[in-house]
């Protein structure tokens, strides 16, 4: 199998997992769901790190590092911002006293 085909297989199966997991999320938590998926989609930071960690010394590697730095910074805003705000929201959800 080519890497692309393996990728497509993984992608399609993941969509099904996503479909089932997300329908299980209670509607009351749809806002934190968006906040946390926001943080999770910043997994592109993995790609950003690879770009920012590119070997220097080649022609044009300065440009690559600038792209990498910007991408890491943007993705990190999402990661830290997304997780912290999700935590803040979820901490507010409390049951009626004596109901836990």
């Amino acid at each position, binding site marked *: 199998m080519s890497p692309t085909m393996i990728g497509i297989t993984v992608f399609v199966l993941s969509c099904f997992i996503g479909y089932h997991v*997300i329908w299980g999320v209670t509607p009351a938590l749809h806002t934190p769901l*968006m906040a946390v998926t*926001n943080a999770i989609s910043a997994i592109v930071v993995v790609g950003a790190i690879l770009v920012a960690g590119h070997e220097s010394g080649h022609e044009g590697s300065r440009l*690559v590092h600038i792209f990498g730095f910007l991408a890491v*910074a943007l993705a990190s805003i999402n*990661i830290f911002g997304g*997780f912290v705000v999700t935590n803040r929201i979820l901490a507010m*959800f409390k049951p009626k006293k004596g109901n836990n």
Partner: protein
Amino acid sequence: MFSQIQISPDGFAAIYLAATVFFILGLKGLSSPKTALKGNRNAMIGMTIAIVATLIHPEVRETTWIWAGLGVGAVIGIAVALKIDMKSMPQLVAALHSFVGLAAVFIAAGTFYADLSSGKPLGGATLFELGIGSFIGAITFTGSLVAFAKLQELVSSNPLVFRGQHLLNALLGIAMFGFTAQFVMSGEAAPFWVLTAIALGLGFLLVLPIGGADMPVVVSMLNSYSGWAAAATGFTLENPLLITTGALVGSSGAILSYIMCRAMNRSIISVILGGFGGEAAAAGASAPTKGVKSASVEDAAFMLENASKVVIVPGYGMAVAQAQHAIKELVHTLNAKGVEVKFAIHPVAGRMPGHMNVLLAESDIPYDIVFEMEDINSDFSSTDVALVVGANDVVNPDAKTNKASPLYGMPILDAYKAKQVLVIKRSMKAGYAGVDNALFYYDNCSLVFGDAKAVCENLTKTMLAG
């Protein structure tokens, strides 16, 4: 700096798989408020694993820029997340979506130039994936910027429609794919930037015509795009972690968009084509024929304290008036008088999915007295008083009875079935969708005019005095 650690490619794949599992567990935790915090922690563990593993990846040769980026992002991200007002959550989410989109563009560009500079030959498949990654990212970026500007009211939330719009979008779309094809064949930088520029323009054009009433769908849709952008980046880098995670986020956003569309009885296509909400829709509303009844705060307080069952229907107006805390006091006072109080939430109440639940939770209203539409609609016929605070379109019975109404077919909260309906309203202005509300002219409905917060405070005061 981590060169002493040697991990095989399979080792990295296994670590990334572990991160994926933590992400799935994290999302699964959101199935109940009881497990949600733990879920968020799982997702954080997943992200930490992914970042640390990538830092020790042999392809990473120097870390200065990486630490700089992580540092800058952490400071900005944490500062914003701690400061943001819950009312402004939709704007924050839109802004964060735009960052993921822009990051995807930079990654595609960076990967392209990195391979160019190290003289690595780029295959057609890689070029194609780079092109796709960049244009999904670019559309997400500018689309989210427009959504942000509309939510923040920097620009009018009215739909911006002009002639030939869809034709223009279609032509731009075709041009974008044309340049992608040229990029794949030539492997040159020029077509890459042209296709990215077109995608940036398309992002603007796609969201501008979408009106305020459809904003919850747009925010969910962009959530979905940010996931697809991550998945596309995963294809470029042949990294299953990005593909899996992107697919999870993408399907999450898609499902939320679907739920929002269903709750408004709109098809996703008609939302994307735009033009709904704002002044354009106002023309379709039936002109009021009868007068409305208004009730004083004293009358309303009397009805509420003599009820045995009260259902409160909050809407975005509650958030605008910052009335949540006043409502909490009202609920306490009513409970002390032996009145049972519940909350009814329409799926599209507020500006994003679940927005009302967060605002109520913020003011310490326990989540187990807050109910979704399907769970509470059958309760209204046995409810003594339905108190509508800052909601409008979601309780408009025209959606059930008036075929001419733009809202026709939208599922609503059956507040009109309660013995008495009290609507707190500032003025007779139409709702977000620009439609007049037939409920106000019902015999069992009285309007209490005033600011939601002030009225709720006065209700509490009157009850405590009496």
